């Protein structure tokens, strides 16, 4: 009985998912009046709710920018907190319209899950955090150290490879949950705490004295994080991709949330095209021509978003580093609006 019944149910479920996925997501979003955005369950600086339930963060800003572009209203977005395990299923099943949850762009995820990565909004990598009073300035001085980390992640393998490649003995102390790692590191069980660098900055805020700890300059893996959409809806894919590109281009062209209205009168053709005073670029992605101007006015350019959420003046205190524009020594490079 089950052999016939189960495929039937599964088929029905997949049929529903397939129809919702193949239909134009933008039309659905416009019809319901908001963007359903998948975020983390609380990672300071990237996607974190405050005491009133307002979400803020670098990943949240991508969703808010989309809402601004489509509805001219940054609040036309609803957030779904997702665990690492749930995130792809939620997107595949159509429960969310876009996943913006510090998700690493890897080949397997891009090619075998029926998903598309729409760009990179934060270049991350695995790093090390130590106590300042240890007097360590480089990860290469960590020979013989005790290292705290999470089990079951690539972090554990990366750190083993790194110490082995540099011929340094070490002791790994691997916990199941991030909070357990923080508690053990804070209590002094380990000299080093290792995970993605952005995670280190975020978890540092949970330590008793965040100021006593520093993140070492070495990055031992590549973890590009970015928004993800379902495969098969190119219009929506383009919209997410160009929302991100618009924010990066705006920073490059010096357009900020403060000067965007004045910049509309600019003579610079690049600025004119971006802000929609010349050409009809917004119409090509199913939006109005002032789509980018709305994003910048309500959310700001990439640099503003970075500074407000994770930059040096925030509790996280992350320097731009590789996340600076290509013209300023980083790798952030958006194709032109043309």
């Amino acid at each position, binding site marked *: 009985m089950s052999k016939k019944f189960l495929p039937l149910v599964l088929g029905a479920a997949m049929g529903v998912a397939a129809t919702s996925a193949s239909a134009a997501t933008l039309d659905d979003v416009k019809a319901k009046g908001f963007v359903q955005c998948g975020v983390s369950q609380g990672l300071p600086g990237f996607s974190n709710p405050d005491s009133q339930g307002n979400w803020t963060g670098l990943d949240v800003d991508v969703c808010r920018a989309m809402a601004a572009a489509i509805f001219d209203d940054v609040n036309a977005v609803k957030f779904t907190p997702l665990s690492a395990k749930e995130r792809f299923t939620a997107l595949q099943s159509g429960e969310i319209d876009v996943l913006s949850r510090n998700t690493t762009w890897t080949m397997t995820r891009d090619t075998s899950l029926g998903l598309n990565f729409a760009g990179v909004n934060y270049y991350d990598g695995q790093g090390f955090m130590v106590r300042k009073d240890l007097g360590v300035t480089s990860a290469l001085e*960590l020979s013989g150290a005790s290292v705290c980390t999470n089990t079951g992640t690539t972090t554990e393998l990366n750190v083993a490879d790194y110490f*082995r490649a540099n011929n340094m003995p070490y002791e790994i102390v691997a916990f199941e949950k991030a909070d357990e790692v923080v508690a053990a590191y804070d209590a*002094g069980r380990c000299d080093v705490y290792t995970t993605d660098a952005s995670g280190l900055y975020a978890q540092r805020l949970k330590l008793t004295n965040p100021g006593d700890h520093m993140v070492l300059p070495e990055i031992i893996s590549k973890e590009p994080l970015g928004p993800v959409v379902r495969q098969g809806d190119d219009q929506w894919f383009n919209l997410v991709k160009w929302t991100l590109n618009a924010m990066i281009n705006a920073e490059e062209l010096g357009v900020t949330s403060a000067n965007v209205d004045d910049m509309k009168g600019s003579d610079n053709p690049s600025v004119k095209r971006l802000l929609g005073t010349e050409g009809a670029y917004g119409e090509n992605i199913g939006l109005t021509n002032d789509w980018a101007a709305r994003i910048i006015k309500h959310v700001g350019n990439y640099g503003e978003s970075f500074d407000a959420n994770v930059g040096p003046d925030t509790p996280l205190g992350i320097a731009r580093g590789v996340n600076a524009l290509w013209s300023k020594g980083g790798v952030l490079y958006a194709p032109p609006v043309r």
Partner: protein
Amino acid sequence: MSDTADAPPRASLLNDPKVRGLFYQVLLVAFLVAGGWFIVSNTAANLERQNISSGFDFLKNTAGFGISQTPIEYSETSSYGRAIVIGFLNTLLVAVFGIFFATIIGFVVGISRLSTNWVISKLAYWYVEIVRNVPLLLQILFWYLLLIESTPSPRKSVELGAGAVLNNRGFFLPKPIWGDVAVYSLAALIIGIIATFVIRSWARKRQELTGQQFPVGLTALGAIIGFPLLVFLITGLPVQFEYPVLKGFNYVGGQRLIPEFLALLFALSIYTAAFIAEIVRAGIQAVSHGQTEAAHALGLRNSPTLRLVVIPQAMRVMIPPMTSQYLNLTKNSSLAVAIAFPDLVANGQIVMNQSGRAIEIVGIWMVVYLSLSLGTSAFMNWYNKRMALVER
């Protein structure tokens, strides 16, 4: 009963209790077999359909991750199989030591609860009530955090004398490195143990025949400790100690007990001891007070009364529930995963996450815990039979 001639006329098969009973039993077995077959065949079919490979070949693959406590040689290039064996040995280590300490603490507390000394009995009472009413996981976390929070960093370690060092990376002891001639001392120890058994059985026989006692305890002390020590001195103290020394971030050398192991051992021993204490108390109280009075009437003092009359009888009551406690302790050791102790479950989980072989790993866990428990059970049953009342 066997005489069918007197039996009442046969009722219809439907109402025959014998046939009915048989029918339901056959039905139950058929259901169980069908259910089992359904689960196994379905799992196999689903795995094949999803192109998930199965089998135990993956155990030969390179593990690639580090482990903090390795009783046998291990490096990142070792196999998954070896990582799981290390986890098994760590589980075994903590279980054996845990059972040992839990038994000792449990006996002391259990007997203390029956003490006529008000303070001692109340202390034992509160120990039992507090410890067994707090969840074990909390106790493990409590001991772990206490251990790493209250001890200093390696550079400010507490020197305990004789080369022992305590800090938040663990408890370091000097490690003895035995010289070649130390074998003679070991031989002396074995001879001493054998001699003690021989003397004990000789002394018992003599006491039964003549009533004369022999100081077996003192002789045993001499044979097991004194004799090997003497040999050790004569062969010129063939031992050197490797002392732990601060090097870089941490102490190296010596024998190290990691905080995860200590915390788990503390928590398991103390928790299980509370239950054992109650079993000991119940066992002793199960022995009729008349036995004690009779022993006193025969002129035995308190200590021999307890040792020779009460405890042997109490043991018969205590052993079966004690077995369950030992089994519980072994299985509870899997909570180690909360404090990063690399036991069977923790290492298995890492391998499972990295190789994706969930069914195989869970299978290994179940088989290992089952055989550990059946082994403990078999030993305790044997011991129980030996101690049980031989009825004539």
